[in-house]
Structures are given as structure tokens and as C-alpha cells.
């Protein structure tokens, strides 16, 4: 069993290992400064207590259709880098089993199927790696 932060991205459910989660807050779209010319997944940068934090739309990274604008911001950390992930909302923090279901996405460590619900487990280092790769 491991602890995950469970989130909603569009209509889908995802979980992020708690060790990669620095904090969770409201998105505050007004505080996000767009960076013209950046790759489309990057919504911009925001000031997080003096740090310039890049904000990335997780729905765009995962290619999940989104009906409403994102409402929450989850600050994730991996390999010394931090990024704000724009999500729909946080569902909660929960102990869950290991991601037993295989899935083809390079951005997921796997998936968990329980009570008829499918939850994708996000592989934060890989997501960061994809964001660092050459611009799209």
C-alpha cells in the first residue's frame, strides 16, 4: 500500500504518489502569466512565494478532453525541479494498492481498478521528462 493524492482531470481519475506532491492550492488563473511562444501545455508561470513556478495543464499533457477550465493547482516535484500541474480538483489523499493494471501510456506507472473505477497512476519523473523534451 502507498499513499496517493487522488485528483480529477477532465472526467478521468488519476493518482500521484504523495512523495512527489509539494502542495495543493487553488489555481488562481489571474496569477498565471502566460509565456508567449512556450509549448501549448504550458499555461504560464506564477509566483509561488518568490519562486517562479511553471504551470502546466495536466489535461493537455495527458491529452484528456476537458469540459471546464481547471480549478486546482498541484505543485509536483521530481529531481529537484518543480512544476504546478493544473487539474480539475483534488479528490483526497488515500492509501491504495500498487498500480497492478498495465497501460500503454509512457506517462503512467500503471492503473488501479477498484470498485469499478479506473485510476491512472501518474509517473511524475516521466511527465517532467516529456515536458523537458523538445518543443512540440
Amino acid at each position: 500500500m502507498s499513499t496517493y493524492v487522488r485528483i480529477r482531470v477532465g472526467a478521468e481519475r488519476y493518482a500521484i504518489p504523495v512523495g512527489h506532491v509539494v502542495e495543493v492550492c487553488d489555481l488562481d488563473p489571474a496569477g498565471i502569466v502566460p509565456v508567449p511562444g512556450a509549448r501549448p501545455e504550458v499555461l504560464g508561470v506564477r509566483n509561488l512565494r518568490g519562486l517562479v513556478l511553471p504551470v502546466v495543464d495536466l489535461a493537455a499533457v495527458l491529452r484528456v478532453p476537458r469540459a471546464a477550465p481547471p480549478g486546482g493547482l498541484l505543485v509536483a516535484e521530481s529531481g529537484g525541479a518543480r512544476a504546478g500541474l493544473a487539474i480539475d480538483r483534488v479528490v483526497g489523499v488515500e492509501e491504495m494498492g500498487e498500480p497492478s493494471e498495465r497501460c500503454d501510456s509512457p506517462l503512467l506507472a500503471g492503473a488501479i481498478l477498484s470498485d469499478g473505477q479506473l485510476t491512472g497512476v501518474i509517473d511524475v519523473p516521466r511527465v517532467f521528462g516529456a515536458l523537458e523534451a523538445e518543443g512540440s
Partner: protein
Amino acid sequence: MSEAAPDLSQIFRDEAAERLDAMDRALLACESGQPGGEVVEELFRHAHTIKGTAGLVGRDDVSSFAHEVEDVLDGIRQRGEFPREVASLLLDAVSALRALVTGSAAPSAELRRRLGEAAGQVRGAPRGASPAAEQPGGPGGAGAAGGAAAAGAAGGPGAAASRVLRVPAAKIDHLLDVVAEVVQFRHRLAHSAESGIGADSPLADDLRAGERMLDELRDTAVAMRMLPVATITGPLPRAVRDMARQAGKEAELVMAGTGTEMDRVVLESLSEPIAHLLRNAVTHGIETPEERQRAGKPRRGRVELRAAPRGSSAEIVVADDGRGVAPEVIQEAGRSGSLVDLLTRPGYSTAGEVTGASGRGVGLNAVRAQVNALGGSMEIRSWPGRGTEVALLLPLALSLLEVLLFERSGAVYGVPQASVQEVVAIREPMHLQGRPMLAVHGHPVPLADIADLLGVRAPRLQENAPALVIRSGDRRVAVSCDVLAGQQEVAVKPLGRFLGGTTGYLGSAVLGDGRIALLLEPKTLATGIGRAPGPRADAPADLPRAEPPPAAGAEAAAPRERPAILVVEDSFTVRELQRSILESAGYPVATARDGQDALEVLRRDPRVGLVVTDVEMPVLDGLSMLRAIRADPDRASLPVVVVTAHASDEERRQGVEAGADAYLAKGSFDQQALLAIVARLLGR
């Protein structure tokens, strides 16, 4: 000697007295124990400065005796060991030097002889070389040669000691200011000269060469602001001892790596945070002597201050062997993120104070804010019962930039002040081929809305909106915006890894009101490289040049977007020369330092339509890069021009086999030939 001498020599006597006092104190410490390298360094510096200033005020007698003292200290410095008897000899010498400075007595011949002998001994016998041979050396100080460590500390006779000059910080700051002024002046000079001369006249070349030298001068001046961490740590051991006493504890401060150099401004802003961390370590970390004894630790607590360079950053660690953070706190940190986030959470510290078991907490938030403001970061590690470690990672040099801020459609942007020639109000723009132009001092300058340059939507500009005339190389562009937001010195923060592929930004800055300003590269504004095409026809890549382009690229009428040229060259001078030739012919230019770098640029910049490359380069040479390009199905047909130092037949054969489209010898390199080849390969 001049009549002004009396004043000067009084200043000299005062300063020398201060330095001799300091030498006395240091030598007394040497007598009671083996001193660290810093003490020897300090002694050497004092003797050296006394020697130098004495020479300046015409006191050659003092200068030459100080030199003899310095010689001994230099030897000790290189040897890495301080023979104890030499301390008493040097104390005698300091007294003699004092008498000589005040003019009451000259040093005895006997003393001078002993100094000479000691200098010979500390220099002549590298430690561990042959201890037995140097034993009979006489009273001067052979007895200390027993140590086995520090092999290699002594340089050979040929190893030049690096001399240190003490210069008041204000002088360096003044130098930097003057250099910045000169850089600006050079811009103005180029501006007034440009109307009279063409871009390819010898005078224009001289101006460009001057710019490169100025850049080097500025870098050198900036490097002079680097100071060792030791400059701020002097009072700390005493402060730690006193703080411990007040709290009824025992603690000693152990310092390491204080020779690590950092920008003076960064260092000065660190004094307070470091003092704060030390206070926390002593008052919250270290336990009372009784508590420590019960826990099986020595009564006296140990606080460490360590500094070490880490690439372009420096790490400063404040560690203690005290009680550490309570296990519950560490567990909570594991749940909610990192320890540093938990302990710096506003309001958290007071909660921790109540239990008294947090071992940390007061004002950490303020420390973190200060470190962040310097562009650094902070980490905390703690082991319950064993201690806590706070690590600060700081930039070696503070990247301060004087910027002019302006706003457009609610967003704040900044450009380096040095690139802004002037600010004008837009009145009656003219048009050339449908593109707006602005008359600036009788010369047409392309005009563009910053929103269009960046490709963002924005409401129409007001009448008489301000425009910044920005200069980069020999190009100028007038950039219009809603309103100017003032001039400010800001700390440049990188946009970070996830925005690494986005070109055109110097970085970002957090302004006083918490807003983020995007700092724009003048060059990108002036040339439009790396910008997504804007919604309007006057996207920057199409901006017509203010001056008529040279013959090679004359027909600027039709092309929507000219292909960019990638210049690959490890020599900065050659690279900049080629860049300026190609840019003045109207081509957008990207540059790379070596083949690897070039492949990187090609991967992320699809507009590169031609490559000009050197052969001999570090990391990945030109021909290997060429083979990699040819092996890539998407770029197999990309035209590549190879520029080589000696175009031997063998080299040409290799180049042709690797797939070069054209050759250019560096020896016969002329800009018309380059432009002709480029035009041919691009089919113009």
C-alpha cells in the same frame, strides 16, 4: 617627494599600525596552536599590503623590510604548515616593522639575517621531502618538520604564488558603474556614427570589435566582485559561543570551505540568514550539557558552517549535532511534502515552539524568503536525536540586470536598459509596403506592437502610445506598448527547464508587488528569431531593416519568412563575425558552440534552412555533425557549408564524403563569398 607627502604618509602610518595589530593577534594565535590556511593568508595579505603602500608613499625602507617578512609568510603559505618557532620570530619582526614605520628604529641586522634564513628554510624544504636533512637547520625552525600530512601543499620553486590585492568594495562598484556607462556610451556612439557610415565600413567593424572587448571587460569587472565566504564569517565563532552561553549551553562553531568565492552582494545579504540559522542551531538544536551527557553525547555541542562550490552555485550548510526535529514532525513532513515546506509554512514555527520539541522553527520562513529572493533554494534534513542540517543553494553571482519595464494588455515585460536607446511617443507612423515605420531622429525605424511580436491578442493601442527604440547589433526596432512601468534593477530568474525550449527570453523577475515580469531578449525583438509568426503581416522575421541591406539580400520584398541560418563555431569571435555578416544581409541567424549543440538547435528550431559549420570543435566535430544530419531522414537534404582552417584535399574529400554542399577556406574567408554561397544554396 612631493609636498603632499605628509598627509599621505600619516594615512600610511595609521593603516600600517592597524595591520600590524592584526598581525600581532594572528601570530599570538599561531603560537598557541597550528593555524589554518586562512590565518597564514591573512598574515601574508597584511605584510603584502604594507609593502605595497609603503612603496607608494616613498617609504622604500619599510617596503623592503616588509618584503622580507612577506617572503617568509609566502613560504609558509606554500608549504601548508606553520613552524611554531617562526611565530615568535615573526612577532619580533612585526615589532621591528612597527618601529621602522614610526621612524624610531631600524631593524637589526641580526633580525634580518634570521628572517632570511627562515625564508630559505620554509621554502627550501617541502614538507615530508626529507625531514632528517632539515633538522640541523639551526634556530630558525626546523623542529616542526615532523608532520606526515599535506603532501603536495608546497609548490616547487617555480610555482608562482597568486598575489592578492585588497581593493575597497566601493572602488569595484564604481568600476562596474563606469563599465556600464561605457557600454551605454558605445551604443550612443554607434548610433550617431551609423548615419555617416555603411554597415560594412572599417569603422563599423571597429565598433563591433569594440563591443566584444567591452563585453569581456564587463565580465572581468563582474568577476572582481567575487569574495571568499570567510569575509562574512569572522565574528561568527565568537557569536556562537556567546549565544550558547546565554542559553546555558556549550557550543563550538566549526567552519569549512570558507575560501569558496561568491558575489559580494550575495554574500552581504547572507550574513543575516546565516546568523539566524546559527541562532536556531544553538538555541533550538543543541541540548543543554546535562541533556547531552544523558544522551551519550559530548557536553559541548558542535555547530558546523560549511561552504562549497556546486557548479554555478555555492552550497552553504549550517548543521548541528543537537536533538533534531521531532519524529512526529518528520512523519508529518513525509505526508505533506518536504521538511523545509513544513517548517517554513507560515504560522508553523509558533506551533512548534509551544511543544519545544521541534528543534527548529523561528524565522525560517524569513530565511527562506531571503534565499529565494537571491535566486537560491533551501533544504532541511534532520535526524531525531542526532541533529539537523539546513542547506542553502545560492547562485555564485547575482544576476542583476537594470531593466526598463513596460506593460501591454495587463502583462509586464522588461528589456535591458542598456538596449533601449530612447522612448518616443508614436505620432503619425509612416508605412512602407504596408508596414508601419517610425521616424526617429530623421531615420525610419520599423515599428511593431509588442503584442504582435509575441503573438498574443491585445486590444488596440491608444493614440500616442509609447514606443521603446531598442537596439541590437546594427538593428533597431521601435516596440510599442500601453504604458511604461519604470526602470528597476532586478534579479534575473531562469524560466526553468520546462520552458527551456522557448527562445527569446532572458528570464523572468519577481517584482516588488509580486507580479512576474518576462524579460525579453533585445536581439529577438530586433530580429524576430524564434518567435511564432504573429497574427499580422508585420511579424518580426519580416521587419524591414532600417538601413538598406547589402546587395546580396536585396530583394526583401516577397519572402514571408526567410530560412534561418545556423552558425556552428566554437570560437566566439569567428561565430560573431559570421553572425553579423549573415544578419546584415537580412538572414535570421541561430548559433551553436559545437556539433552537439547544433544538433540540439536543429531539433527544436524547424526554421533552420542552412548550416554553416567549422570542422574542429569540442564535443562533436563538424564532420561528425554533418554525418548525423545526413543520417536523419528529415534533414538529409539540409544545405551545409563547411568552413575550414586549411582546406587540404584530404579534408575536402572527407567533407564531400560526409555530405558537405560547399567549402570555404578560413584563410580566404570573405563575406561576399559566404553570402554568394548561401544565396546559391538557398536558391535565391
